[in-house]
């Protein structure tokens, strides 16, 4: 399978990565190089094989649903590029 330029733009948008028009042909080439590299997997017989979900056989542990080591809103928002009164600030979403 290979991707066309429209697909490259669609993937970039799904991944929330802005791409400039002049980048598209080069990206298309690189993505297609990777996709053709993984093409050989189609030749592997996987009938009746379970997909791997956990590489080490173990049961996922459960814990009580409770606050454990919450550091506080000050600490949580300290690294934010925009924060006000313990909230993250973002550009206006609803007019």
């Amino acid at each position, binding site marked *: 399978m290979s991707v066309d330029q429209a697909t490259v733009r669609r993937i970039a948008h799904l991944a929330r990565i802005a791409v400039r028009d002049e980048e598209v042909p080069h990206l298309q080439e690189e993505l297609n190089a990777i996709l053709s590299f*993984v093409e050989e997997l189609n030749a592997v017989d996987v009938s009746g094989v379970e997909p791997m979900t956990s*590489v*080490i056989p173990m049961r996922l542990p459960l814990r009580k649903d409770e606050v454990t080591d919450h550091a506080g809103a000050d600490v949580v928002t300290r*690294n934010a590029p925009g924060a006000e009164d313990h909230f993250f600030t973002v550009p206006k979403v609803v007019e």
Partner: protein
Amino acid sequence: MMSDLTKLSLAEARDAVASKKVSSVELTKAHIDAIEKARGLNAFIVETPEKALDMAKASDARIASGKAGPLEGLPLGIKDLYATQGEHMQACSHILDGFKPPYESTVTSQLWRDGAVMLGKLNMDEFAMGSSNETSYYGPVASPWLPPGWDADKGRSALKGDKKGLLVPGGSSGGSSAAVAAHLCLGATATDTGGSIRQPAAFTGTVGIKPTYGRCSRWGVAAFASSLDQAGPIARNVRDCAIMLRSMAGYDAKDSTSVNAPVPDYEKAVGASIKGKKIGIPKEYRIDGMPAEIEALWQQGIEWLRAAGAEIVDISLPHTKTALPAYYIVAPAEASSNLARYDGVRYGLRVPGKDISSMYENTRAEGFGREVRRRIMIGTYVLSAGYYDAYYVRAQKIRTLIKRDFELAYQNGVDAILTPATPSAAFGIGEKGSGDPVEMYLNDVFTVTVNMAGLPGLAVPGGLSASGLPLGLQLIGRPFEEETLFSVAEVIEQAAGRMSLPKAWW
């Protein structure tokens, strides 16, 4: 006081500090000086000398009061993928601009618990995506090994320029491998998703182990591909690696894939007899176009182990060839999901846009480098509607087959598997991957199977190439049997002779 404290191995330094022949402050100062003189290599991106000296003083006080830990007073370097409370942590990416985590990773907290001293943060490929340390936002790391035929002057002048032609230290843990090889620290933390501990160790003549998946906590280590990522050490010899791993490993309730099993004293396995151990030699690792010197190195390794009393058996791991392409579906898929959190809202870089969506898109376009953007896009594609079964589910089925290959070998009594660590010696900065990204990916052809199967893997120097560069052998073990790897690796290390690491030309 000894003349050059940076020449000590971690085990020697430990013994010297514990017996009060050397203070931790003296040892730490020697390494701080070495780091300052080696800035041209670009191995450390952040130096924390004041913190290091504070920690060293505290270590000396604990030693004086008889409360020393197993790593007391030993200065280490930390890969920038690890969260270090209040200190720089950016996974060598622009997108985490200015990020200082308010918490400490479990692995580093265990190192400090055991008395280790932090020298600073080490360069790496951005988000651990790369095999040469060239994708770092902070620029490439130069290997302390000079290219064949170069003298110190030529090396120094290249360091002042764009470093082209100097050798890569491997990746993604290239800062770790370079710093350890150049004697800037006694050992370093590293991480391995597809070979990022073992390939840089092989390129620099150092020893690195990727433990079994679940052995070390991933908590506080920036996630790349969660089902493959494992923490581990790089050090200058097998014993030093064993000492570090004991402190790094262990159960952590904060990582749901962490395994609750006791941590053995790995150092005890170093020097243990390997008589009667069954060592598997997988025929599928004899790949087309493999250089004769890699083949010869592998054969030499086989002879050394046989001479030490091991039984050598030919084995088959038929799905080996599928591991690398399957990895380039699984790893980008998981990366695209893990890296969705970098959106310019909670931490790091924010690039404004006309609305929130364009703010996300602009932030991620500017914050991520080319390789990371490429992998996120591949991952997004293989997980997108209509392609999920054809790519991702198929790759996970192939992963089951890869793991089954190893299980069959182990069921037949194989204790460990011996392979080359890399298909070549180190290459030059700027030499590979600029046109076709797959060219760089092929570096991990021997290491990636181990991550896909969750097994422990260790790289140990086996000798030098015809042009005088280090070559590594890889040992692959049964799950949670890292001790066997340390025992077998020690035999190789003893037989190969101590790799004479480069003199300080930088």
